[in-house]
Every structure is written in structure tokens, then in C-alpha cells.
């Protein structure tokens, strides 16, 4: 089976959490009373200092309800943000995205077809039981069960066997080499749930009445459906170095953006990961809330439908013309409050968690997408683009997409192209983009606004979506060089540099052919009441046990 078969991405999920939000915003009501000049602040810190003081209660705002407390379904921002505090995974990510051991005290590669994890001893579950290899095997094997339908199932496509070697060792054997699973062991795909609970709860595992039992710094306390999830500090946590100054975490579900902002302002909510770049400016004006940012790992970009034969953007010159005509800095300001970076590759530098020199050198060599109207007009003319019209679609679930779409539309107009802009509901959008994933008709689009973030700090997963066999390849891009290099890179399990050298060739193909080009890389935004600190903004918050880092200032 091809590695890309069913590989999942966070692209869809970026949109997901706001799906319930878009319906009711009375545009900038709070901004109006806060006298904010949004869109000019780029000076935010990346972390607020914690004073180490104990905090009895932290109330956190979630724009949508977690899906489940079952890690197999923890593949969206809300579920992840709660559950990572309750469940430890075999590995973990540093705030910068480096891969570190967690429940496994070490991981060893045996050739390129086996991963061996040696577990910490004396780790306790929330119910008092000791963590053993049986728990790990039972937890990981759930992802292999098609009847369960784990959202991470695709990442286990190349796994032949998961077995225990004694009480504290677990071995994963691969059918063919696959570098990604090791990284995914730091996500909820590598989360360990007590085997006793797995056996007892069956399909009820993770639902509000059952919850979940893990080894994390906090234990599941309650889940009032539709209202809140409560977690409480676990007193026998194995990792002593985590401060855990917060005793209780209450995750409140607040579907309306304006209500969430109002609650931040009154202090009823202590923080949120899901304030948009556009709202960050008004939040800074509140006075009692800090806005922290960190470079993101993904991109907001313009994707082209390469399947559409003879369309106006079939020629790469046409795609490049639009790039040079677009005021990307202006779009970033309007769409994400200026919080982010203008980049020349789909993968921003923040995602180079290994082989940095190789990625850095290759990046410096990429063609720059600078705003150059003369060049854009010349290219448009050569491509026969002038005077044509095309359709741009975006998901109305993404609040930043509307100003972005208008920016691209203006750019197109400046080179004589008429863009019809269409906002689609999230479902319709993906249906169009994926050309009818579940057998429905779709694919009648020329350009689409694509929001994408990889599951971990790594360029390869992003470029792997452009292989001709990838189900995530919405553009229909097909390039033999890229296909070959990506396949080679995925098999480079032990040699990071070799993998990076393959990945940058794939990156070059995408930068030259432009099936998609980046508008900007949106920064990760964390808002935090000023009574709290100790936590850094990190793009991978949904895979990190962050609540234990917070403390009172």
C-alpha cells in the first residue's frame, strides 16, 4: 500500500473548530468598544513568565466540543488540547517541535523496519495500575482495527505488527520502511490508555460517561456534554519535572466568537488557543489578556485545479503571474492581523526540526514571490491569461478566508483576470476540493484557498500531499520527480539528512510548478489572562501537555 494512502492531515481541522462559529458574529462588536486598531501589532512575546504560584482553577475557552476522550478520535484542535493533558504518548515534542522520548525512556531503530520502545518503569495510571507493554500494545493496536475507524489509521498503513517483548519493551514491525510513525508516536496516535479500561469499556471508551484513564499529569474528572470538560491534577504523576501548579482545568465550550472574546475580557475565561489573528488586535486592547505568538508550521495558500484541462491557469506562467500580482503582506494584515510570515515555500522555516542546514540552503535558492506588477502583467500576457475569468472557492468556516479571497481577487483584477469568488460551507468546500471523496460530484473550481498545517514539524508531509497517488492531492498535481523523491524520502527512516535532501528536491518541484503557492504562514496565537504565565505559544499545542506548565504570576 502506498504510504500516502489515507494519510491524514490537519488541513481540514484548521477549519473545523470554527465551523460552529461563523454563523453568528456581529462583526467586531467588541473591537468597537475596545477602540482597537487591529492589524498593526507584531510585537507580541512568545511566552509569558510564570511566577510559579499555585492556581486552583484555570478556565479555558474551546470554540467547539471535543469529539471524544478516545485518543483514536483526537485529531482536531479541541479534542487534542484537552486530551494531551490526560494521556501521555510514547514520545513528545519540544515547544520547537523536536522529537523527544516521553513514556518510552528510549527508542531504538532496528534497521529501517522495526522501532523498539523501552518504557519507563513505575509509571502509574490514574486508576493506580502500573504501565506495562500490554497497555501500549493494546492502545496502539486499536488504530489497526478498521471497525473502530481510528482517525490515525492511515499512519499505521505500513505497520505489520505491534508486539510486547517482555514487560517493558514494545516493538513495532513495518511491512515497508516509514519514517513518519516515530513522529506520530508523539501525537495522540501514540497515546497510551489503560488496557483494563480498553477491555472494560469497549466502544464506550472516551464517551462522557466513561472518559479515559491514562498516565498524564491530569486525570479526566467529568464531561458535561455540550458544556464543559473538567480535568484534575493527578498526584502520582511519574514525571516530577512538570510543575503542575494548576489544580483543575475546566474547558468551556463557547461556540460564538464574540461571546468568547467578551468572556476573555471579563476574565471568565483565562485563555484560548483559537482566537484568530484578526481578533488578536482587539484582545491586546483588553489590558488584562496577553497575546502570545509563535511561528506556525503551515500555510494559507492558493491552490490551483490542475485536473481542469485547458483552464486559464493551466500554464505555470499564469499561476506565477497571479503570485507576483498579489500583495501578500497586505493580505496577511487583513486576514490574520499581520501575525505571520511571508514565505517562498509552502513549508516555513519553523518546520525544519531536523537537517536544518540542508533545508536552509535549499530555501535560500527558491524563486522569490515578490510583488512585481510589471513582471506579473508580462507573464499573464505570455500565458494568454489577460481577459479570462475563473472561479475561486473558499470555506466560509475559515474567518480569514474572506479578506484573503478579496485580496487575491484584487490581484487578479490588476492583471486583467476576473475572479468569481464563492464561499462554500465547509462540507461543500471539501467536497469540491476532493473531487467527491465519497462518490459525489465535485471539482468544478479553478482556484481554492487552502489552509494546511502538517501533523509535526517536518517539510516532507506537506510535499507528500502533492504525489500523484496521494488522496490528499486536491490539486491533481502529477510530477514524476516529486513522486520519486517523496517515495525515497519516506523510506529514509534512519538518515535525517538523506531524507531532507530528497524532500528539498520535491520542494523545488512544487516551487517551480506552483500547483499551490503560499500567501503566508499564519502564526500560532495563544491568548492568556495576565494572572497566568509559564507557557509558551507553540504550534503543536494540541500534542503537548501544556496545562501543567501554567502557573500564577
Amino acid at each position: 500500500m502506498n504510504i500516502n494512502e489515507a494519510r491524514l492531515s490537519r488541513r481540514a481541522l484548521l477549519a473545523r473548530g470554527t465551523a460552529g462559529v461563523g454563523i453568528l458574529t456581529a462583526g467586531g462588536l467588541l473591537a468597537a468598544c475596545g477602540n482597537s486598531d487591529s492589524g498593526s501589532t507584531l510585537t507580541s512575546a512568545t511566552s509569558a513568565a510564570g511566577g510559579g504560584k499555585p492556581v486552583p482553577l484555570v478556565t479555558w475557552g474551546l470554540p467547539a466540543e471535543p469529539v471524544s476522550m478516545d485518543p483514536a478520535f483526537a485529531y482536531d484542535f479541541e479534542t487534542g488540547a484537552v486530551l494531551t493533558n490526560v494521556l501521555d504518548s510514547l514520545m513528545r515534542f519540544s515547544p520547537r517541535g523536536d522529537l523527544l522520548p516521553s513514556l518510552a525512556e528510549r527508542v531504538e531503530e532496528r534497521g529501517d523496519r522495526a522501532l523498539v520502545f523501552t518504557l519507563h518503569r513505575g509509571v502509574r495510571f490514574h486508576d493506580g495500575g502500573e504501565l506495562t507493554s500490554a497497555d501500549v500494545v493494546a492502545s496502539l493496536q486499536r488504530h489497526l482495527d478498521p471497525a473502530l475507524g481510528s482517525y490515525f489509521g492511515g499512519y499505521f498503513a505500513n505497520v505489520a505488527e505491534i508486539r510486547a517483548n517482555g514487560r517493558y519493551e514494545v516493538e513495532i514491525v513495518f511491512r515497508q520502511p516509514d519514517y513518519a510513525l516515530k513522529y506520530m508516536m508523539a501525537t495522540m496516535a501514540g497515546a497510551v490508555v489503560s488496557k483494563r479500561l480498553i477491555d472494560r469499556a469497549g466502544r464506550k471508551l472516551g464517551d462522557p460517561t466513561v472518559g479515559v484513564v491514562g498516565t498524564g499529569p491530569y486525570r479526566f474528572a467529568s464531561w458535561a456534554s455540550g458544556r464543559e470538560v473538567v480535568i484534575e491534577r493527578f498526584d502520582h504523576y511519574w514525571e516530577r519535572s512538570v510543575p503542575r501548579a494548576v489544580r483543575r482545568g475546566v474547558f468551556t465550550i463557547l461556540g460564538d466568537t464574540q461571546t468568547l472574546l467578551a468572556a476573555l475580557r471579563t476574565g471568565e475565561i483565562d485563555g484560548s488557543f483559537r482566537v484568530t489573528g484578526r481578533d488578536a488586535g482587539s484582545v491586546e486592547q483588553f489590558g488584562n489578556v496577553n497575546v502570545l505568538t509563535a511561528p506556525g508550521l503551515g500555510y494559507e495558500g492558493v491552490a490551483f485545479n490542475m485536473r481542469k484541462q485547458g483552464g486559464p491557469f493551466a500554464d505555470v506562467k499564469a499561476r506565477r503571474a497571479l503570485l507576483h500580482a498579489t500583495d501578500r503582506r497586505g493580505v496577511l494584515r487583513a486576514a490574520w492581523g499581520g501575525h505571520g510570515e511571508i514565505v517562498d515555500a509552502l513549508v516555513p522555516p519553523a518546520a525544519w526540526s531536523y537537517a536544518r542546514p540542508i533545508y536552509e540552503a535549499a530555501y535560500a535558492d527558491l524563486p522569490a514571490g515578490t510583488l512585481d506588477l510589471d513582471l506579473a502583467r508580462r507573464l499573464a500576457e505570455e500565458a494568454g491569461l489577460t481577459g479570462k475569468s475563473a472561479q475561486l472557492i473558499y470555506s466560509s468556516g475559515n474567518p480569514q478566508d474572506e479578506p484573503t479571497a478579496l485580496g487575491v481577487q484584487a490581484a487578479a483584477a490588476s492583471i486583467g483576470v476576473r475572479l468569481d469568488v464563492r464561499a462554500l460551507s465547509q462540507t461543500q468546500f471539501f467536497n469540491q476540493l476532493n473531487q467527491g471523496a465519497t462518490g459525489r460530484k465535485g471539482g468544478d473550481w479553478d482556484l481554492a484557498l487552502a489552509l494546511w498545517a502538517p501533523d509535526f514539524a517536518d517539510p516532507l508531509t506537506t510535499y507528500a500531499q502533492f504525489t500523484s497517488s496521494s488522496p490528499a492531492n486536491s490539486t491533481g498535481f502529477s510530477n514524476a520527480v516529486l513522486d520519486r523523491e517523496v517515495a525515497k524520502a519516506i523510506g529514509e527512516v534512519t538518515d535525517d539528512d538523506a531524507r531532507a535532501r530528497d524532500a528539498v528536491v520535491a520542494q523545488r518541484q512544487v516551487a517551480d510548478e506552483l500547483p499551490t503557492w503560499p500567501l503566508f504562514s499564519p502564526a500560532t496565537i495563544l491568548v492568556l489572562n495576565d494572572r497566568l504565565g509559564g507557557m509558551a505559544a507553540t504550534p503543536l499545542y494540541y500534542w503537548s501537555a501544556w496545562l501543567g506548565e501554567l502557573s500564577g504570576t
Partner: protein
Amino acid sequence: MLGYVLRRLAVTVLLLVVTSFIVFAMLHVAPGSPLEVLTGGRRLSDTTLRALSARYALDKPFLAQYWLWLTNVVQGDFGESIAARQSIGSLLASRAPVTLQLGVLASVIAIVFGVGAGTVAAMRRGRLPDTLISGGVIGLAAVPAYLSGLLMILVFSVLLGWFPVFGAGEGVADRLHHLVLPACALGFSLCALVARVTRATMVDVLGREYVEAARVRGMSERHVIGRHAIRNALGPIITVSGLAAAYLITGTVLVEVVFGINGLGALLIQGVLGKDFAVVQAVAIVFTSIFLLITLLVDVLYFAVDPRTAVGVRGEA
């Protein structure tokens, strides 16, 4: 009377079935499938998709799906929510109380203020209080509840800090504290209707001979209004109040979202956005039942207040 009520109940059940079918059919025709929402645009392997389809009976034809749902509901099983992965019965049970409380509180506000304002306006007909009240309630009715809700949050929660921004609170006092703003936002939107009907009816009644007669006999104005006028005006007022209550209890959807109250309305929105057929169905059925039940209650009450209508009822039965 009993026959009338029974017949009304039979019609209610029939209406429920028809409503559920229409809702089911409309969800089916709308673009997208629950699976697409469930997977959030991700591509799952075919095996996984097939397993999911089978679990939620999505692989069956439309009518078979509907029949399966109907037979289960008759046995008290509303099925399982695809998005929330839990039984809908428990979802409904945990969310219904707050919606009912909010609806009842809003109805009380609409009726008390509406009847009060309408009565005062009728007594001071054509004078300044009448103009102020009539204009005021229409102004309130012109603002949609979710907008007035946001404005109330802004003024009373953020600027003045009198009320919490969101949530439903625990315990009686706290719950009331949390529900005052949303109930006002909701109730004021229907104040105008109640006030207008009350005013018109009262104006009519106050012009009748028996009111004049009561006045001529030297009865106090309080006595005239309280014992003679209001009682006779009660019929239309009960009708409009009942309709207002039915509308308010089932119309909490937007206000619940704005105030972060997770009742049936918020559940309905989630269900619609997630194409969670079974959830939308269940909430639609609950709302329809409440609506029909209240209108039934109003008819019975109308009869109790004004026995003259019993003739018509008997005649029908």
C-alpha cells in the same frame, strides 16, 4: 371535551410523523454526507469508510434509514449521535432542562411586560404613555434576539459587570443570574406582540357597556380593570401568550449560541452543521412536541376561562 382532546392528540402524533419525515428528507437532499463531516475532509481508507457507513446505517436506502429510525424512536431509542459518539437520549436529557427554563423565563418576561404594557397603554389610550409604550415595544421587537443579546453582553456583562457573559450556572440562584440576560433578549422580542394584542383587546373591552356600567356604579378603576375588563379580555391574551410561549421555548436556538448555553438549541445547531441526522431529528421532534403540546394546553385553558367556547367544542365533538 375528552373526545376533543383525544382527537387533538391524534393529530399531534400525525404531525410529528410528518415533521420528522420532512426533516429527514431535507437533510438527505442537502449537499454533503455525515461521513464527510465526521472525517472533516480527511480521506479515510475504504475499509474504514465502509465500517462507519454500516455502523450508522448510511449504506441503506433513504426510506429504509427513515423506517429504521422511526421504529427505534417508537421504542424510545433516538439512536446515536455520529459527531458526539453517544446516545441521543442522554444528549437530550442533559440539555432539555436549561432550554425549558430559559423558554419559560423568557415567556414570563414577554407575558408580564407585554400584558402590563398593553394594559397601561389601553388605559392611557392616545396619550403620551400609550405612544411611548407602543413605540418602545415595537422598537424592541425590531432588534433580533441574538443582536440584542450581544449588546446586552457588552453593556451588562463587559462594561458594568452585573451578569456573567456565558453559561447556565449551577443551583437556583446562580442559574437565574445566568439566565436573566438571555431570557430578556428572547422575551423582549415577543413583548410587542403580546402588548399589541393586549392593548387592542383592552381598548375594545374598555369601550363595552358593562365596563361603563361598572364605572357608573362608582367602582374604583382598579376594580373595573381587574375584575371586569381583564377577565373579558383574557381570551385573546391567553391565545397570544400561549403562542408566544411556544415560540420562545422552541426559539432559543440563536440566543443559546450567543450566551454559550448548551441546551437543545445549541444541540440543534451542532446537529445541522454536522449533518448529524439523528440529532436534528430528535431535537425537531422534541420542539414540535413542545409546540403542539402548548397550543393544546392553550385551547384547554381558553375553555376553562370562557366556558362559552365549550359549545363550539361540544359541537365539534
